[in-house]
């Protein structure tokens, strides 16, 4: 039995296109797999094909997902596809296949006994958790020109899930969020919509001079942070569980010289 591997670009569009092409094959879905980029261990009896991301194909898959499974599930799938894990394409593809054969399609994500659906659920949760961590722990610093600037280093591609939160709460601020891993920037001009640009287009990092207030407020907050803990209750283990070490290098209160 021949196995087909469709190699997709690692993006929403790329993977949705892959799903579209998988259906075009008109072969049993058990024989078709989505994979991202090149597979290191080539299988001898498998056929490899690469899919070109196609906006229209992707849009049709997205529309089907929303129509059949509802917006919530669509969002969960988007989160799963923002994951860093390479099996996400396959999991989403097989989830769509399983879901379309279910009686109650709207309840697809409740079907956790299915391993693919469970995997999508799990990947979506990883992304959601990490996005939430950034909503909690992201720190802005004020630049000389009053722009608020934040850097982060997320494992999953969370930026589009967190910017709306900050845009809603800081509508009158100019702010920038930089994903250092992917080198993408979210830019929010005061009173206007935010947008993404990739790092090649604009290098903001060269422009860092912090405002005067920045030094003062970062010191005030660091001092507050240390003061508010009750020493009779010290519990570094608990602190580590709640605030994983890897976020700390971006956080004002954990930076030695908190302003510069």
């Amino acid at each position: 039995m021949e196995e087909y591997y469709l190699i997709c670009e690692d993006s929403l569009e790329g993977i949705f296109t892959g799903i579209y092409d998988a259906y075009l094959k008109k072969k049993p879905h058990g024989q078709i797999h989505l994979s991202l980029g090149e597979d290191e261990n080539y299988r001898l009896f498998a056929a490899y094909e690469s899919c070109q991301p196609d906006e229209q194909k992707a849009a049709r898959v997205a529309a089907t997902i929303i129509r059949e499974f509802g917006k919530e599930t669509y969002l969960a799938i988007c989160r799963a596809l923002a994951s860093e894990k390479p099996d996400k394409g396959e999991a989403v593809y097989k989830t769509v296949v399983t879901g379309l054969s279910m009686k109650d399609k709207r309840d697809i994500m409740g079907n956790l006994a299915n391993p693919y659906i469970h995997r999508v659920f799990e990947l979506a949760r990883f992304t959601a958790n990490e996005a939430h961590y950034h909503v909690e722990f992201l720190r802005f610093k004020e630049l000389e020109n009053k722009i608020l600037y934040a850097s982060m280093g997320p494992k999953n591609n969370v930026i589009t899930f967190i910017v709306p939160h900050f845009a809603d709460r800081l509508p009158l601020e100019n702010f920038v969020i930089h994903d250092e891993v992917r080198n993408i920037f979210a830019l929010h001009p005061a009173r206007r919509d935010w947008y993404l640009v990739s790092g090649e287009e604009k290098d903001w990092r060269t422009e860092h001079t912090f405002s005067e207030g920045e030094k003062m407020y970062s010191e005030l907050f660091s001092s507050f942070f240390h003061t508010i803990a009750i020493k009779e209750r010290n519990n570094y283990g608990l602190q580590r569980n709640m605030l994983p070490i890897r976020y700390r290098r971006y956080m004002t209160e954990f930076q030695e010289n908190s302003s510069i």
Partner: protein
Amino acid sequence: MEKDLMIHGKENMPLMEKLKILADAAKYDVSCSSSGVGRRGDGTGIGNTLSAGICHSFGADGRCISLLKILFTNECIYDCKYCINRKSNDVPRATFTPDEICELTIQFYRRNYIEGLFLSSGIVYSPTYTMELIYEAVHKLRTLYRFQGYIHVKAIPGADPQLIQRLGLLADRMSVNLELPTAEGLKRLAPNKHRKNILSPMRQIQQGITQNKNEIVVYKHAPSFVPAGQSTQMIVGATQESDYQVMMVAENLYKKFELKRVYYSAFVNVNQDRELPALPGGPPLLREHRLYQADWLLRFYGFEAGELLSEQKPNFNVLLDPKADWALRHLELFPVEINRADYRMILRVPGIGVKSAQRIVRARRNGNLNFEDLKRIGVTLKRALYFITCNGKMMYPTKMDEDYITRNLIDRKEKLPFDRDGMTYKQLSLFDDSEECLWKNII
């Protein structure tokens, strides 16, 4: 004139020093939650709120830092024996100006350090006078600074009810501290406070909330009154009450005063007062933890205080969480069949949290679940296995014997004794739903 002196006497103290003094003085208030109200920004100011609340940092004690928790002033005319700010203590005193409070809140908020402000105060001159100061600061923050994030303020017992009413229209959450579980304890340790004075603003806020909900039904844009509800806290371990008494008080507060949250604060002996227990082992943190677990059972698991404890068994088991403890005393109800038992019963199984229970009920619609499925769903099987069957079978053949199961439930790496630093609350949080981060929601 005299009043002015009292408040503005130390105005030229540097902000850094004030913040240190007034955060240090506020830290024993345990509530730091920013939950209970979801409100989007309206585009004209700064801030919004999320109904689940957001923690922004975690201090060395592992407690969540969500709000800028400060006192307006740590001057106080009262002399509560357990309080660091009491009149008879010789500690540095400081007082903020309303503008300082507003600036700190806004500047911290913009940088995503905090979700908002928690403002409490020592009592200067009189409760009403103190409330006026708080009102002035909060009013300024809401109107002049257009702050739409979270605000939690203390209602000071004995203050003019009109002021409480007005403040309630600006704040998201209000709280009046019960301080101690019983009136006798209060009388002994906080001689200037009276139970009645504490309960009456609590009642007023409750009624205000109810009335406001009705108004909002009629006039959609009626301003909201304390939309995130009210909370309170009591100190445990400073007086002699049993866990049973504490839980009965909490249950009453939930039922009769419709509180959103009751906080329990393990007594920290800051004053070494002769009237107070010395606590050589540090604050009673494990006891506090058990109380929080039980509190969750009341709020989310459908338990009543009387099911967990009684006059005959007035204190929680040190070795077992209250849910496992309850299950072991009711082995006749187990094992339950996962594919058929109703939601409320599944919720009572040790090793199954609220989210897992919901997922089970949802997932079993697509066919019978087995143990592998339960594991995927997030059930902690090593705890649940004594209490459940899947399709009529237990996971392993197991004796339904109290001692045997107890030994197995305790004998894990989470083994006590409780170590203040090495052991984490997460390991100890025995509700076992991996998603349910107990402490995040508690503090």
